[in-house]
Structures are given as structure tokens and as C-alpha cells.
């Protein structure tokens, strides 16, 4: 998963354009960052639901176009709805490209997870444990608690965590998302040091 942080996205948008985007989303920088990441999650989910292999790239494209409109002085009242509109346009345009020949989930191959006694699975579990330990203590504990709550009470558990940390639930989600991004970077590095294995596209 390419959980990219707002800072890495500056490499796609110019610094000035990215600043403009964040300022537009919210005058408070922290809240703007949170809104940016929530919107990014929604966009990647939108593209994933359409069997798009490059959902993160498509989300970048939406932000590029949104920022361009902001720079041009366009007045946008409902940024979420506006982004959804751009996303649908980007998706339709992509149907003209190479992805047109793969436009549904049925066209994509299923990549099975490693079997139970597979050596690869053992390697991945070892990397998982190692990277969890390498996270700052509070982050690791939060990630485990957030992700391992029991099936039936998951939403309530997460609300309880948010209450305990005195943070809005959405801010908590974004925080966990960022921790997971760091974890995934470590995980990928760890696997890369291992023997020749499957690669993600």
C-alpha cells in the first residue's frame, strides 16, 4: 500500500500549490492536513472500487486538477463533491487508456496470500513483528488496539479509544493511517532484504 504522507505529496504538486490547497481546506494547518488525508482516502477508495490498479496516482491527478482550479481562482463551495466529480471524470478518461482493457475486477488476477506453512509467510510474520517493535511505543500500541478490536464491537471500541485520547474519531483514523504508512515502509524494506519474493504493482 502506498500510504503517502502530505509531505511526500509535495513532490507531485509544487510547494506553493500544495500550500494553497491546504489553506483552502482549512486555515488551521493540522486540520487541513487531516482533511487532505481524509479526502485522499476517499479518492483511493473510489478508484479501488473501480478495480483501478493505480488508485493513488489517480487520486494525485484529482488533487492536481483541484489545485489548478483553485490557482485559477475558481470558487468551490463543496470541495468533497467537487473532488468526486473530478474523480469520475478522471476515471472515465482512464477508460480510454491501457486500463480500458481491464475495467472490471473479473479481469484482474487473484493473488493468493501465502499458505500456512509457507516459508514466505514465516518471513512476512517475522517482518511484521519486527516492524511493529520498531514503531514508537505509543504508536505501536495504538495501531494494535485500533486494528485488533473484536468483530462485534469494533466501532464502539474505536470510539472509546478516541474518547480516551480526547481526539475526534476522524482524527484518530488519520493518525492510525499515518502510523500504518510508516509501518508499511518498514515492512517493505524488511521484505526487500529477504529472499526473492512476490512484488506488488
Amino acid at each position: 500500500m502506498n500510504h503517502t504522507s502530505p509531505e511526500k505529496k509535495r513532490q507531485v504538486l509544487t510547494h506553493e500549490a500544495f500550500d494553497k490547497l491546504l489553506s483552502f481546506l482549512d486555515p488551521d494547518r493540522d486540520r487541513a492536513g487531516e482533511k487532505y488525508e481524509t479526502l485522499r482516502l476517499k479518492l483511493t477508495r473510489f478508484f479501488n472500487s473501480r478495480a483501478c490498479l493505480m488508485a493513488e496516482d489517480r487520486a494525485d491527478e484529482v488533487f492536481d486538477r483541484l489545485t489548478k482550479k483553485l490557482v485559477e481562482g475558481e470558487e468551490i463551495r463543496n470541495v468533497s463533491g467537487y473532488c468526486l466529480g473530478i474523480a469520475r471524470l478522471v476515471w472515465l478518461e482512464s477508460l480510454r487508456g491501457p486500463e480500458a482493457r481491464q475495467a472490471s475486477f473479473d479481469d484482474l488476477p487473484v493473488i493468493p496470500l501465502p499458505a500456512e506453512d509457507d516459508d514466505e509467510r514465516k518471513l512476512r510474520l517475522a517482518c511484521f513483528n519486527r516492524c511493529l517493535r520498531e514503531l514508537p511505543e505509543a504508536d505501536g500500541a495504538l495501531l494494535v488496539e485500533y486494528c485488533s478490536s473484536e468483530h462485534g464491537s469494533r466501532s464502539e471500541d474505536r470510539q472509546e479509544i478516541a474518547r480516551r485520547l480526547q481526539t475526534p474519531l476522524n482524527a484518530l483514523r488519520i493518525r492510525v493511517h499515518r502510523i500504518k504508512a510508516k509501518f508499511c515502509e518498514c515492512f517493505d524494506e524488511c521484505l526487500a532484504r529477504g529472499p526473492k519474493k512476490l512484488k506488488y504493482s
Partner: protein
Amino acid sequence: MGEMSERESDEFEEKYFDDDVLFGELLDAEDRLIDDYRRGRLSSDERERFEQRFLTLPDRRREVEFARLLAESLAERHKADLPAPNAEPAPQRRPLLSLPLFSWLSASWPAPGWALALIALIMILGSTWAALKTSRLQDQLDQNQARQAQQLEQARNERASLEEDLARLKTSTSPAAAILSLTLSPGASRSSGETKKVTPGSRTQMIEFTLEAGAENYAGYQASLQPADDENAEILIYKRLEAQKTGAGKIVVIRTPAAMLEIGDYQIKLEGIRPQRDAYTIGKYLFQVRRQ
């Protein structure tokens, strides 16, 4: 899982784009679905649809794998009776030396005082030995951690260097087609030199394989991509394929993201699904991947 109509799907998207709370509930629901899949609670039809939607895209597949690995990690720890990762350490016990030793000696116990003194001495010696051993272990742990930090730093530097090399390669290689196509016939052997090669470039996104599937009719088709020397390993699975009629017989087309294929020898095993739902192997199609 593809159960909503297009219109319902569009309406739902508009709602969750506008409503962060609804979006949060959607993410929670997806996590519950992943949990159900992991625990084997889905019907076979639901399982198949889940896999087609969650194990085909890298982002979603990673979420499923994360959930599975977390469950395994926690299960391992419960078995070994270890605390969860990053849990708070157990409260320290009061060191024996802080206990009122002399109060023991002066207490009116039924056992003789000298026996109590001996027990106390043994306990003091034991705790001193344990403290020394702990201190040595702590030193070893510190050294190991320092070594690991050094190795991690080295790995980071190596990765940065590799990324620079990769960036240089990307700019210097000549552009290649976004989709490479390859037509394969069954039955070619590696030793005969008949194996076809595909050489994806840095810009190749997809490799399209056209498999000659003979003239026989089947209710459906499925295929699996395998290493050429290991029929039991499955790298990718393609389900619910359809054949197309051509002048020369039937063909089945499958597509694979180029980044999924490393340099090596592969085979695609194509199976026809008969009306009785059993699979018949139509052929094995060898090919080699070489990089530009």
C-alpha cells in the same frame, strides 16, 4: 462486494464523500468484512467475490494481509504468554534487600532464628546473583540494539542508493509500450528453445497473454501463473475467464501487471471447466521474462 447497482453505488459515493462519519462507518464495515474472511465466516460465493475484490488490488490485499498477520502475531504472543507488542512492562517487584531483614531475625517465629538467617542469606545471595545476571543481559541487549540500529542505518543507506540507481535507469531507458502482447501455444518445452520471451520496459504496465485454447468447448476457463519449475506454486490465479472464437480455434486472453513478473521462467496452466464443475487441463504455456 459488487452487490449494489451502479446508481446505488453512485448515490452512496456522494453520501460518503460528503459525510465523514458515514465514511468512517464504511471503513469499519470493510474491516469487519476482512475479519469475517480471515475467520472463514463467508459463504463460498461471498468468499470468491471477496477475493476477486480484495486480493486483486495491492492496497486492499495489503489490508487483508495486515489483519491476518496481526492476528497471528497476537496469537503467537498469547501462546507464549508474552505481553502484546509495546505493552507496558509488568510492575517491578520489591527488591528483597528492601525488606526488613532484622525484623525477621527478631520476630518470634516457631523456627530457630539461625535457620531464618540462613534462608535470608540464601535469598540475599540469590537476588544479588540474579541482579548481576540481569545487568549482564541488559548489557548484551544494549549491544544487540546498537548493532541492529547500525544495520538498519546501513540498510536505509543501501536503499537510498538503490533508489538513486533506479531513478537513473528510468530516465535513461528508451520508452516501451504500455501493454506488451504475447501469443502462446501449449506444449513448448524449455529444452527445445521454443520458449517465447517477453521483455517489459520501465513503462510497460500490463502484459497480455493470448493463449491458444484449442477447439473444445468448455463452460468456463481458469488459469494459474506458476514458476516454470514448480507446478505446485501459484503466483496468480485467473478465474471466470471466457474464450474468444478465432479462425484458428479458441483463444483465452489474460492480463498481468508487468511489475508482478520478475526475471525468470514461468508457465501458465489453462484449465477448462466442464459442466460437472471439474477442471480439465487444456495446456501449459511456457514463457520467459527478461528485462530491458
